[in-house]
């Protein structure tokens, strides 16, 4: 147990060290690419939610297989490593074309908890989407709320 803990701390420490080191060595082009990548990641959430939301609004017929595929994709995306594109120095105070707030990188930031909340809600949606339309509809609220939970404090409203 202790060994695992120490190993874990070492990995985390290296990761933070790497980012801190990188902060001075990231080019503007790399930063711009990172912003694009995370926005694309977000766009994929929206795209897949579109399938589930269309069914919830009864704009398209409920289909358990299609709903499950969309829910699986969201859950998978939510669990991908993302530190590569949340680079320090890429907040909306430091560069253009991003709405990411500096609060993401501030001391005591709970952005990781918010990311975890999305995993929880997306996992619940996987079950609901496979069950029936009523379950899917009921799971839309918590899933949408988990996106909003992060956008609330970490993304600037438009304009």
């Amino acid at each position, binding site marked *: 147990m202790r060994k695992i803990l120490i190993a874990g701390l070492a990995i985390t420490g290296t990761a933070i060290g790497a980012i801190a080191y990188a902060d001075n060595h990231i080019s503007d082009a790399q930063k711009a690419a990172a912003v694009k990548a995370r926005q694309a990641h977000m766009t994929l959430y929206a795209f897949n939610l579109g399938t589930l939301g269309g069914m919830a609004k009864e704009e398209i017929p409920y289909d358990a297989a299609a709903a499950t595929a969309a829910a699986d994709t969201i859950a998978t995306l939510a669990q991908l490593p993302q530190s590569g594109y949340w680079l320090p120095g890429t907040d*909306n105070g430091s560069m253009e074309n991003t709405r990411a707030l500096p609060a993401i990188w501030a001391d005591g930031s709970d952005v990781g908890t918010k990311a975890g909340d999305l995993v929880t809600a997306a996992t619940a949606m996987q079950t609901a989407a496979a069950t029936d339309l009523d379950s899917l509809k009921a799971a839309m609220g918590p899933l949408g709320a988990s996106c909003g939970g992060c956008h*609330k404090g970490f993304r600037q409203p438009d304009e």
Partner: protein
Amino acid sequence: MKRIILILFIIGCVVAAIGLVITRPQRLQADALSGLTPDADRGRLVYAAMGCASCHMAPGSDDPTRLPGGKSFVTDFGTFYAPNISTDPEHGIGDWTDEQIATAVLRGTSPDNQHYFPVFPYGSYMRGDPSDVADLIAYLRLLEPDQTPSRDHDVGFPFNIRASLGGWKLLFANPDWIVTGDLTEEQERGRLLVEAMGHCGECHTPRNILGGMNTNDWLAGAAIPGQKGRTPDLRAPSLDWSAADIVAYLKTGLTPEYDSAGGEMVDVIANTSQLPDSDLSAIAAYLLVVGAN
């Protein structure tokens, strides 16, 4: 000469006194709540519709049943802090009468006849219905007491003079409806939910330099105090959403493009998502009328 100064002084005092009389804090009529049978179950929905928890929860909390206050509001006039409105008799409002609570919400006047600052959105709430507020109070009385002391506002002279708020109320706090004319029953319900209870205009309507709402630009979108960015225009065709889109957004926070709401709208959706579909449809029906006007 001395005489003239004395006369001017007396005239000045009379003018000031008349001013204070015209702008003196208003209370609810003594019988405003009599004959009502408050229903705490309905009150829970009123509480969600009026969004009390968004402001009176602890900063960063997700528990809408605990109301210790402490959230800060940065404005051009200074920083305000929401007070404790839990049932604690010492730090909260546990020992207030129903009339005192209802007068605070519907008139912006404290038990000792002081004006409240309009960050407390009584300018919207005053259009509301006393029977809803009676239900709300029955619900508030069921919530846990909390011993967190309220924090003093950080507001400098002259804005910290509560008596001067009487003039503000006279100019800008108007209990009349903004949208008038022939409305269906559903649109009227939506008007009550948007213009009064949900106080949507407080964030979505631009303000003048004195902090009063420009009701000519009702729901046209506004700057967000102390932050970059603006709240969106809610008038069609700027907001080109169907009624079903608006209902889905108020329930899940998801837009028709399946982006998700952010900023303070997330707190609003935590409240509206508890309302019955009929209320959300009423809000949508009303917003579509605002666009058409």
